């Protein structure tokens, strides 16, 4: 039981480490370590609860987050430098959230993470879009979140769950 707690602690440490570190490559390594421990954590959870599904989730997490993503990010880094890579990284993480999360709310959050990644990008490399555009984009996101909220409410009333990967009535 206590091994899992140790993993959780290590994960927190990696978050702090990532928050502080300057260079991008070490940030990616931090991400790599963090996702390694998250997969171990899930794996041990699986061992405890004997639930097969967790093993597979752990394995996919391990495969993607530890091997594929860092590789791609390193390849990307080679030709563009500076704060650009952080924003690119955050957008991709946001997108990641949307792909791998089931709940509707987490998808909205994923969307927002992507958008603030873009704001960071705009601020970093082009020291901000023309002021008027920034404000309207901000209002735009506000409106879209409101409408998304309306839809989540409607899904909840109709489907009595907000689990998006059950929303598969329309096929083919």
């Amino acid at each position, binding site marked *: 039981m206590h091994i899992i707690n140790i993993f959780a602690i290590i994960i927190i440490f990696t978050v702090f480490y990532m928050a502080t570190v300057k260079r991008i490559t070490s940030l990616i390594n931090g991400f790599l370590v963090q996702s390694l421990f998250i997969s171990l954590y899930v794996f041990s959870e699986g061992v405890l609860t004997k639930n097969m599904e967790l093993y597979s989730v752990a394995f996919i997490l391990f495969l993607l987050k530890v091997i594929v993503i860092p590789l791609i990010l390193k390849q990307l880094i080679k030709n563009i430098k500076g704060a650009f890579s952080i924003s690119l990284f955050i957008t991709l993480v946001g997108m990641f959230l949307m792909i791998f999360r089931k709940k509707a709310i987490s998808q909205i959050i994923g*969307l927002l993470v992507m958008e603030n990644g*873009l704001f960071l990008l705009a601020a970093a490399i082009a020291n901000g879009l*023309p002021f008027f*555009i920034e404000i309207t984009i901000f209002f*735009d996101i506000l409106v879209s979140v409101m409408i998304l909220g309306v*839809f989540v409410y409607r899904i909840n009333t109709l489907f009595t769950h907000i689990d998006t990967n059950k929303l598969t009535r329309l096929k*083919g």
Partner: protein
Amino acid sequence: MEIFLILGITAFLAIISFFIKNYKALSLVNVLGHLAVLSIVAKLTADIYGNGASISMFNFFYADPLSIFFMLIIGIINAASIIYSVSYISNDLKENIISSAKASLYYVLFNALAFATFLVVMVDNLGMLWIAIELTTLISALLVGFYNKKNSIEAAWKYIIICSVGITIALFGTILFYYAATLTGATSINWTNFMAIATKLDPQILKVAFLFIFVGYGTKAGIVPLHTWLPDAHSQAPTPISMLLSGVLLKTAIYAIIRFTIIINKSVGIEYSSSLFGLFGLLSLGIAAGFILVQKDIKRLLAYSSIEHIGIILIGLSFPGIGIYGALLHTFNHAMTKSFMFLGAGNIVKKYKTGNMNIIRGVINLLPFTGTLFILGAFALGGTPPFSIFLSEFTILMAGFQNKSYLTCGLFLFFIAIIFGAIIHHFSKIIFGKEPADSKVKGYEDFFRTSSISLIFLFIFLIAFGIIVPSFASKILLLAAEVIKQ
């Protein structure tokens, strides 16, 4: 000046229809409004027909022949759709599927969508272009989820999520474009200014940026790997809305991509964008052909055929010279034919109460008027000569052959043949044959009077552009093509 008028009327209609309670007055106001808008657009086209100049005001609005051409499409389809939705919504009211409050909400959203789509085409500022497209997605998502049934909500949810992801990526691309512009010292994000400094921009960043733009706005345009939301949204939306979605919204996304292609062509050169278009065009054509073959629902089939035609437009854009003229012509023809077909499908679905093609039979006996027009439309969609789609496909093919890209044209012809076969196979099964016994419901006869007006209104365009493109239309198309080839 006209630009303000158009935007003003649509905004005014949106607000007004919130307050008018009596449905008759509401629909009358709306129809008149939209006809007025159409006449203004027509006047605008007449102006630039003369001198081919472009109007730009306080470096925010910008209307060159290309955007006016798209305005024409939006105007016509809006007018047809509003006429149809008058009877469509009144019929829903009568069967009290929706309350009268919902009806006025429908008109509010309809006019808001019209406002947003006109905005997209008029704005010069690329950031503003992004915001306008984001607005169209949000409003149309509400309209797709109008009926508050399980399927339509799911479709709306998928539509809004996928398109928002796509548009965020497009924002990513726009920012990169702006970054490239700031490197050369420019500050304004206006399209005209980009054109001026296009040659000085750093090609490496532009290439990456264009990829993001292409994927971003591509999701909104329904290019294949990103098209997943399109069949659900189009088949679940109420008919006038799916007509708008297919006819107008996909075209606005294509408009946005064209705007960026002009910049990239100027700075990086033609082959980069044309190879991208050619690849994705063929991909959309092929996959759409596969889907159309196995479809069971009329509206989904029409949605997939929109993907197919978007693929054709992309292939058209990938051939320089006359190909661009053909692609623009095809955008116009497809907008007309597809909305025409959606109207027909709407009537059929209303009559048979289901979209499933295995149940629908003998449409020609039950709805003789819609039936005949529908089968003619089916042939038009398949690309048979007397209709306009054949003319534009033929121009694209001509450009293709002149461009010596025989493989693309070969595949193009092969997929067109399969799709023609699939469409005829499906539609001839539902049009002819013995109608099911229990479908003698007489309720919809009056419904068809008003809808037939818009059917005929669109059918005229199908035939008019069939054999030879009328001179004034081809002049506008040439001007628009000039803009692209700049």
